[in-house]
């Protein structure tokens, strides 16, 4: 394994650089083109500044209300849509920004700092759109992505079912071809935006033969919300991210025109999986945003609260908790940045994306729990901001691929790399 990693590192740095031990000018190989760079360019800084301002001035003050009531943040989603936060990846021919994953993640981390539930309401339309962006025909894109640009509408991604989540192969929702249409029957569950979406991406089994391999048995469909037979369920009351609209959806003899098939019959599994490489970094960056918020709140409180005659930040036990949070935030950020950068540069990023997502989820959860600890009794109380962070953080271990699935991806990648060198 060590040898395999060495090989990966060697190729990444372009060969080992021999260093002349001189005290004068450092030979910075990074100054040549394509070297490592940890600085944002001016446009990225501007984009980040707008998102940061919006998060602090609009999202954070409204967050407690939406968390308490579960009310969908329609006003904030509309404002975010006006600023260009909701549809970063829509291609230019539909009127979109065609922004990269990295820049969208810069925005996502800042919005999640304000409230990850509201940020999810703003950002999850992207997940539903991704199959259409990646595999849709120009007509499908113009029709279904164009309308999201024209009006503050959102999309939803419908794959998970009551009976299957991680095991996508277990999807039971089925679609049968009838003339020029497909008839959809089944149930999806835990679908973000289900109650407010204008259309869904739905994965359904189109080859009923159980022996048919997953890669050929499923098809991806675009389903208009107002098609007869589409019934979203009640809004689910979850532990956290309560502002986000999560529901089950039932499909009863829903008629889908054949024009709404993505790529072709049997291509569904590949489409559903392919979307994840672009959508896991944004989830990782949101978890990082939560962790940053935890760090900021805990630091601020620890400088105000006094025990034994000094602000608690002066006690090493507390200071070390803050240090651990900071270490987590910095490294989680680097992890999503790498995964996002790879996605934008056409490099297969499943390995980095899974690392980023699983790591950031752990960092967010630990930071939130530690933030509550720093606040002490007040941390447990709903009048202080940190208990919400702990409730919001948990979902990052679960959605967009559970931590266990991420570890499967990472371990397989490591083992394959070793095997291929043997």
């Amino acid at each position: 394994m060590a040898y395999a990693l060495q090989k990966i590192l060697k190729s990444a740095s372009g060969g080992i650089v021999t260093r002349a031990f001189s005290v004068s000018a450092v030979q910075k190989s990074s100054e040549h083109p394509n070297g490592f760079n940890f600085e944002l360019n001016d446009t990225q800084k501007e984009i980040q500044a707008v998102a940061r301002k919006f998060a602090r001035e609009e999202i954070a003050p409204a967050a407690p209300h939406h968390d308490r009531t579960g009310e969908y943040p329609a006003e904030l989603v509309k404002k975010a849509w006006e600023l260009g936060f909701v549809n970063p990846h829509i291609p230019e021919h539909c009127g979109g920004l065609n922004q990269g994953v990295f820049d969208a993640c810069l925005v996502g981390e800042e919005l999640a700092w304000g409230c990850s539930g509201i940020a999810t309401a703003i950002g999850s339309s992207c997940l539903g759109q991704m199959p259409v962006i990646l595999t849709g025909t120009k007509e499908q894109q113009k029709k279904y992505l164009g309308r999201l640009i024209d009006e503050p509408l959102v999309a939803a991604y419908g794959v998970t079912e009551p009976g299957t989540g991680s095991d996508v192969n277990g999807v039971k929702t089925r679609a049968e071809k009838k003339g020029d249409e497909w008839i959809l029957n089944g149930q999806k569950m835990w679908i973000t935006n289900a109650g407010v979406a204008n259309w869904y991406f739905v994965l359904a089994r189109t080859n009923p033969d159980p022996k048919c391999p997953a890669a050929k048995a499923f098809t991806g469909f675009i389903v208009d919300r107002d098609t007869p037979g589409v019934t979203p369920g009640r809004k689910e009351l979850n532990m956290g991210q309560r502002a986000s609209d999560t529901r089950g959806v039932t499909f009863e003899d829903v008629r889908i025109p054949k024009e709404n098939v993505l790529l072709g019959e049997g291509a569904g599994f590949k489409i559903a999986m392919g979307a994840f490489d672009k959508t896991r970094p944004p989830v990782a960056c949101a978890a990082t945003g939560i962790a940053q918020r935890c760090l900021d709140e805990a630091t601020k409180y620890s400088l105000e609260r006094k025990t034994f005659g000094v602000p608690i930040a002066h006690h090493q036990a507390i200071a070390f908790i803050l240090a651990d949070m900071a270490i987590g935030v910095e490294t989680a950020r680097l992890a999503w940045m790498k995964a996002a950068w790879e996605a934008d540069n056409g490099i297969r990023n499943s390995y980095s994306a899974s690392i980023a997502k699983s790591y950031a989820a752990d960092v967010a959860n630990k930071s939130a729990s530690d933030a509550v600890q720093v606040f002490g009794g007040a941390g447990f109380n709903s009048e202080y901001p940190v208990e919400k962070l702990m409730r919001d953080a948990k979902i990052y271990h679960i959605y967009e691929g559970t931590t266990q699935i991420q570890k499967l991806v990472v371990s397989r990648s490591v083992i394959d790399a070793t095997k291929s060198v043997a």
Partner: protein
Amino acid sequence: MARVLVGVKRVIDYAVKIRVKPDKSGVVTDGVKHSMNPFDEIAIEEAVRLKEKKLASEIIAVSCGPTQSQEVIRTALAMGADKGIHVEVSGKDYETLQPIHVSKILAKIAQNEKVDMVIVGKQAIDDDSNQTAQMTAAVLDWPQATFASKVEKGDKEITVTREVDGGLETIKCKLPVVISADLRLNEPRYATLPNIMKAKKKPIAKVTPKDLGVDVSPRITVVSVEDPPVREPGVILPDVDALVAKLKEGGHV
């Protein structure tokens, strides 16, 4: 439709805690967050609203300062200005740049660009001078409408409501005119992501004060910069008589 010139200044961000340099020559600016003067944001917003109402045709954003001043010009472009002019003033010259210089610069640019309105923030939050609008109007011999909290544009004149000590004053000025924006004039918009991307393609011209025929040699010397005195603690007095006695003692009554 009017051509509008807006002056924008790069200042230390309002939320930053200001620290005086140990050598008392000024405040610490290295590594400190800077942004557009809040009153200038209001000025740009007013210009953009005029353009949206089709009362203005082109908005030119101007900033005088070192290279970093281009950041606030870019923000102005992202909010809706059409082009920018960066008047390069750096180093020692920038430390002693005063409204007397800036007003001459803005006046020259206003003439070169044939503008009908100059809008600036009423004052910058670093020097609180509240002079640039007034001096610019004097150099140009244009009417001035300062502390504007409402601006309505007619064909050849504007009606401005001003916030003054006694309340609100409404005046009419013929174009061309200089306006200074006060707090309640409007609420500045966020720059949208599409506008930030579009702003990258908008031009920013670079000039020097020399090109404009303006002499920026210092008219002042900074003697020292110090923190304000530490606030004295208050005293709790037993009754009203004691309070009146203390006030008389201190010469306040």
